[in-house]
């Protein structure tokens, strides 16, 4: 593997992270920007484990993808509030700048990408599955990479597209980046993007043909990932070029 990942060697100790900024991405998703002492950096696509401790000493931990690029000074996580969640309601509603909690990582050595791996790069997201892919796009933009990249992003509604403004700015600034949205539940009146779930037709339209051997990363709910990966194989993409990561409701 050409990417030297910080995952493989040493023990992942719990560290204290301090919340330095909070951004509202959608009505259910927040970005937490964190300062972590002696953070050794990460590779786009990796995640961290977050552990919360209550006043009664009770603890719970969950994994969250890093959304910032490795070039950013601090790391960012996107947290979606799940009503039945144990950790996400706290992180997505209660936490304030200055608050601290434990974190360890970065973790993950397979669903990762850096510009050294080259392109074409194809990212396919469903809902909050955009999170690890955003780190890849920010890294690509910071490195001013020229090879073609595509993001195909399925969300339910327009106002549920996470990072929409930044994605639109990236696409305008970079002629080699194509960003395509599809809205599966409800579309604005003047909507010109897709209006159904990712299917064979949209994959044929937006994903580079198999002979170009695109590096494909699919992240989202299990059903979307399962179906998309299956269609990509049917279209002729090599299994080894398709990397998947699934966010279930239990990612809360």
């Amino acid at each position: 593997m050409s990417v030297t990942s910080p995952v493989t060697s040493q023990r992942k100790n719990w560290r204290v992270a301090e919340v330095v900024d909070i951004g509202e991405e959608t009505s259910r998703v927040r970005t937490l920007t964190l300062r972590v002492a002696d953070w050794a950096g990460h590779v786009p696509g990796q995640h961290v484990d977050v552990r919360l401790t209550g006043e009664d000493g009770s603890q719970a931990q969950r994994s969250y993808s890093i959304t910032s690029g490795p070039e950013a000074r601090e790391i960012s996580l996107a947290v979606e509030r799940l009503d039945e969640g144990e950790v996400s309601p706290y992180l997505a509603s209660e936490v304030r700048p200055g608050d601290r909690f434990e974190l360890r990582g970065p973790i993950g050595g397979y669903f990762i990408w850096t510009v050294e791996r080259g392109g074409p790069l194809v990212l396919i997201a469903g809902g909050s599955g955009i999170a690890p892919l955003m780190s890849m796009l920010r890294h690509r933009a910071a490195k001013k990479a020229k090879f073609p990249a595509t993001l195909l992003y399925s969300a339910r509604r327009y106002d549920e597209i996470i990072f929409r403004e930044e994605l639109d700015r990236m696409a305008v600034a970079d002629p080699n980046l194509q960003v395509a949205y599809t809205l599966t539940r409800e579309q604005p009146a003047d909507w010109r993007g897709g209006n159904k779930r990712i299917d064979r037709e949209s994959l044929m339209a937006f994903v580079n043909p198999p002979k170009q051997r695109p590096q494909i990363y699919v992240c989202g709910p299990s059903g979307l990932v399962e179906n998309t990966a299956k269609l990509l194989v049917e279209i002729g993409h090599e299994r080894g070029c398709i990397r998947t990561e699934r966010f279930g409701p239990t990612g809360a």
Partner: protein
Amino acid sequence: MTNPPISRGFRAKSRPAGHRDRVPPGQHLVSDFPVLSAGPTPQIDLVRWRFSLRERGKILKEWNWDEFNALPQTDWKRDIHCVTTWSKLDTHWRGVTVDDLLRAVGHDEAPAPYVMMHSAGGYTTNLPSADLVGGKAMVATLYEGKPLDPEHGWPARLVVPHLYFWKSAKWLIGLDFIPENRQGFWEDLGYHDYGDPWQEQRYVGD
């Protein structure tokens, strides 16, 4: 380390009474069955499916689907624990224990101290043989009385419930008994070599 910071107003959900000793540290209970896979689900043709027991790569015995299903069947009710922090209690499995597979080739014990599990699609995972014998592991073909879902390993997967569930390789097509330990797919990518949930052995060094 020093005491962790306290999150004001946060309180972890209490584990259901009577289940606390069944939920390892850092885990939470789920009622659904989440999926973890690195790539596309393999397309498998049952007619061409073969399961092999090997020693240092050499085939000791190979079964086709009908032959495999004619082996002694065992029913299990077990708790399972995924490294991504979910646990699920009282899951039902039916399949062939590794003990019965070994018996079918005339072995009372494992022929070598380590095993590499091989799956369709190239996935591998490693374990000491001791963790597969003595009623600790089965090659399951039914979950909750029904064939496995494709994304959960159809037609056959390993079930080693006392370890994190990535050790329970999906789409299993063979066990290779080997003299020395080698790392499998996730183990090579920074996950723990053994994966005991009660010791929270999630990643290298845990």
